[in-house]
């Protein structure tokens, strides 16, 4: 990931900030990176599901969202982080590892809202022009100040953090 070879990536900084807001709920969380990891999970068995990478790779995220919803027990929550302004994610000369979509808070709210109900979803964005450009360039989080990283500009969505609750 951009910046990982220079100390922690800027995206990881924002993922940590997103999860820190839910620190008290993370015990026993099921962490996934792919829909296939949920296929064998029993319905209504999980109190919390976390996905901090991989959401952008799905050609169609709706089956994944259905699986997440199905796996959660009533009252359970999903914490999903997705980008956003980012490089393409390729790991080689072909499409391996590449993203399918770059999301916005709007599309994340609508996609999750379609499955969980609009009132059950909140989305928080992270980033600004400096952190977004730095992230593209592979500059690490440690090369910007905390104030520079944490300034939020809603026009520059590097990361979107979604909390979705299964109500029933």
């Amino acid at each position, binding site marked *: 990931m951009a910046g990982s070879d220079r100390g922690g990536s800027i995206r990881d900084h924002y993922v940590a900030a997103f999860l820190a807001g839910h620190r008290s709920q993370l015990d026993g969380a099921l962490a996934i990176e792919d829909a296939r990891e949920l296929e064998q999970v029993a319905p209504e068995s999980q109190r919390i599901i976390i996905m901090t990478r991989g959401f952008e790779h799905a050609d169609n995220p709706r089956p994944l969202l259905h699986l997440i919803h199905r796996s959660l027990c009533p009252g359970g929550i999903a914490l999903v982080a997705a980008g956003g*302004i980012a490089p*393409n994610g390729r790991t080689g000369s072909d499409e391996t590892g590449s993203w*399918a979509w*770059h999301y916005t808070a709007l599309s994340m709210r*609508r996609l999750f809202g379609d499955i969980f109900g609009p009132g059950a979803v909140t989305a928080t964005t992270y980033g600004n022009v*400096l952190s977004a450009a730095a992230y*593209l360039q592979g500059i690490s989080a440690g090369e910007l100040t905390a104030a520079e990283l944490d300034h939020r500009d809603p026009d520059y969505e590097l990361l979107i953090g979604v909390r979705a609750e299964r109500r029933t």
Partner: protein
Amino acid sequence: MRRPFHSFLRPRRPWPPPVGAVRFGSLRRRAPLSQQWGDDRGGPVDRYYIEGFLAACRKDVRGRVLEIAEDVYSRWFGGSRVTRFDILEYQKGEHPRATIVGDLTAADHIPSNTFDCVIVTQTLQLIYDVEAAIGTIHRILKPGGVALITVPGISQLNRHDRETWGDYWCWGFTARTLERLFREHFQSGDVEVEAHGNVLAATAFLYGLGRGELTRRELDFRDPEYQLLITARARKGGAA
């Protein structure tokens, strides 16, 4: 390339600069240099790619042409090859020369097999039900007709646009996805998709630099890891 003499008088800087040695210059700010995509600095970087693509496809801009929201590109690239200019506006009254009011996702009132060319630039990212819009584009093209499509990949949003037009921006695309979506609908025709941009162009675009502030060589270099602007030329199958 031979180094100029004076460069021997000081050590070369290593590349990439080590951690702590990056020189950010004018870019170490929390606000972009332009709040208007670069309109106030000689024009946005992405327009360089959009116009280059349409220029390369200008022969497709002919006959009866539909464009979204305006007819600027139809006129510029089609000229006398165009026999009729149509503009699709989302709400009545948006454009004085608009000929059709509607939404690409619900356009049953637009007859099938109507247009020789449909130009949809920087629009699909605003449509939640993208697949329905692409289905409409395919349906309303004549057999052999061509859709010329551009979409953003890496991009910022814009608060002034949101205040004016509302909050509609749903997606940034990738070449892989745009190709998949168009091939699903244009199965019997052809689809050519290309990604444009590189890390420098993407950075410049995010800051709202003007296209003239980079060289053509800097703009033209393509790095598939940095897809700033993605274009598609999709031809509907059947007799031309």
